[in-house]
């Protein structure tokens, strides 16, 4: 049972036109050629481009395929083809079983009507029959936790409430294929947990396609990953970590933001790894130490400084910090030059690219003197592929007596 292929995508391509007028005109031509049943191979016309180009993959029941890529990489177009909203220009998509697509929640709601009435509207739109809705009505209400507001017009609902109601209805689906396109970004934490639980429940029984920009979700749920760029598949495999890394490396983030209040500037910075060899692009292993040596130029006489280094990952999330105040360190000012070396010990980061941000504060005046982003970057080489940000050292022993 678990080996059945439910989704089969064979060299699927789709083209779009950049210009509206041309797009409309080509649409007209497509309608005509569709009506007369032309079987001519579709080539690019005028300013068209391939939004999706020769994509192939398969998803079996019980598998989860993550789909990532920057905005406009062709993810949504691919999903629309999987969902049968638009047809491919070449290739074919085979979908076996009932498809549940959570691309938009609460489709078909009318703002004037009450939540109760709209349950029927939305459920009908996503493919329930009257009998099914009647049977599931109570569980929808219970899941949504809308309670007393059920008979209020939906236009007075908060956006979170609308999504709750929408998801509560969609969650009643029992699909063989589930497609989710970043709908879980809204709603409060409690509801998010509820959604994830419901999805986990469905996960075992379905072939699942999941589009998200939240890499933590991708790495916890997905068994396979496809990275798309400009309509093409750049990575297709089951090592989620490698795919995500490849995706992050697409974003160049070397621009520096500098906020400084007085005549202070960063003159130089260098990084060293365990082997004590300076490199432009430093690579270390998880668990290695990192030495940062930086030189600041500032007014003579200012001595009582505090330094802080922040380590950011490519998602621009602050993962860890080191602070000189923790060990009550002050640097000496030699003719307007302050040179500091700091060893960050045992960086148990998972593999990836990291950036350093530097803060300098005057401990006397409590003023931030310098705040500079992306002062340096380093790689952590891949060891074990993990979903979390840290792979902590651990001791394992046999506790069987």
């Amino acid at each position: 049972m678990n080996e059945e292929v439910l989704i089969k995508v064979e060299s699927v391509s789709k083209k779009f036109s950049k210009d509206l007028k041309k797009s409309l005109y080509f649409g007209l031509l497509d309608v005509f050629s569709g009506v007369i049943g032309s079987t001519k191979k579709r080539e690019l016309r005028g300013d068209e481009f391939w939004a999706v180009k020769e994509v192939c993959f398969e998803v079996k029941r019980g598998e989860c395929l993550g789909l990532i890529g920057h905005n406009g990489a062709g993810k949504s177009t691919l999903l629309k083809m999987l969902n049968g909203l638009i047809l491919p220009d070449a290739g074919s998509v085979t979908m076996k079983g009932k498809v549940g697509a959570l691309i938009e929640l609460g489709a078909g709601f009318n703002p004037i009507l009450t939540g109760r009435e709209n349950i029927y509207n939305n459920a009908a739109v996503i493919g329930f029959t009257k009998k099914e809705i009647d049977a599931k009505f109570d569980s929808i209400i219970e899941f949504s936790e809308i309670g007393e507001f059920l008979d209020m017009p939906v236009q007075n609902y908060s956006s979170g409430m609308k999504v709750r109601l929408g998801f509560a209805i969609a969650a009643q689906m029992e699909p063989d294929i589930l497609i989710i396109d970043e709908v879980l970004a809204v709603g409060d934490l409690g509801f998010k947990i509820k959604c994830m639980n419901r999805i986990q429940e469905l996960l075992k029984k379905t072939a699942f396609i999941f589009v998200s920009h939240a890499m933590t979700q991708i790495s916890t749920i997905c068994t396979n990953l496809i990275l798309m760029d400009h309509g093409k598949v750049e990575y297709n495999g089951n090592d989620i970590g490698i795919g995500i890394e490849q995706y992050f490396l697409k974003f160049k983030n070397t621009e520096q933001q500098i906020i400084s209040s007085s005549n202070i500037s960063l003159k130089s910075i260098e990084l060293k790894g365990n082997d004590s060899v300076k490199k432009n692009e430093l690579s270390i292993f998880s668990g290695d130490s990192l030495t940062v040596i930086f030189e600041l130029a500032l007014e003579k006489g200012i001595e009582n400084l505090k330094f802080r280094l922040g380590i950011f990952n490519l998602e621009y999330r602050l993962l860890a910090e080191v602070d000189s105040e923790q060990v009550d360190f002050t640097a000496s000012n030699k003719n307007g030059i302050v040179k500091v070396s700091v060893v960050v010990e045992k960086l148990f980061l998972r593999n990836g690219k990291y950036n350093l941000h530097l803060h300098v504060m005057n401990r006397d005046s409590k003023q931030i003197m310098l705040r500079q982003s992306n002062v340096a970057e380093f790689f952590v080489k891949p060891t074990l592929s993990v979903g979390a940000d840290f792979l902590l050292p651990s001791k394992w022993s046999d506790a069987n007596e």
Partner: protein
Amino acid sequence: MIFQTKIYKSASSYSAFTLLKESFSGYRESFYLARQLAKRDIRAQYRQSILGIFWAFAPVLMSASVWIFLNLTGTIQVSKTPIPYPLFVVIGTTLWSVFGECLLMSISSVNANKSIITKINFQKEALVTLGAIKLLFNLLIKLALIIGLMLVYNMPVSLSVIWFIPLLLISMLALISVGIFLTPFAILYHDITRVIPIIMQILMYLTPVVYAAPKSGFMKSIMYLNPLTHIINGLRNTLTGYPVEHGFFLLIFALCTILFSLLAMIVYRISMPIITERMSA
């Protein structure tokens, strides 16, 4: 549960017969959805209104009373009508407004539901059914108006009235089919939606809607050549107990309508995925 396998390929790889079969099953499968959405639209429409269904026949009543006023005051002399002029005008304008609604029905139905078309996979035939249900709902209100007025004028009811409903339905089907046929083009180019009311207005004056065809002259030949003349006269005659003229023409018309409606269904089926691509959500 039936385990459905769906294969999506480029549109050109289907035969007309398959498309037609799919279209029919699309109508069948999506009937509940269409009914639900029609209920939604009608409820929402009347919930935020005080006068409610009055607005279904107010425009017709307004334009009819203008013509009745013009005729009563002698501003405009129209050819003599076989039935009382006010009744003639009200039936004419009502039918004409129904025709106009039929023509624009599927275009406005698709336009109003763009947001779900671009997001959800459902049988798009539901939108046609949805429009048709709303149309029938309005039609019933308007027919009630006509029947009320006929009672006021004490019109005798003859057997020919049984032809009224089939003839009305077939003419509505004809205009709906033209509308469905035009829908993909109207979604792509908004010009079509703009030009339809203008054409309908011009056609109204070339058809015996607010006045009967003159006995002689240029206008008589134009009206005679205009197929809508025979349809609207046929409808009015069956309703008011006069015999149907040009029965043979109406039969041919019915046959052509059925064939054309099948063509329109195929065009709609083919074009929906294509225009979905070019729609904004």
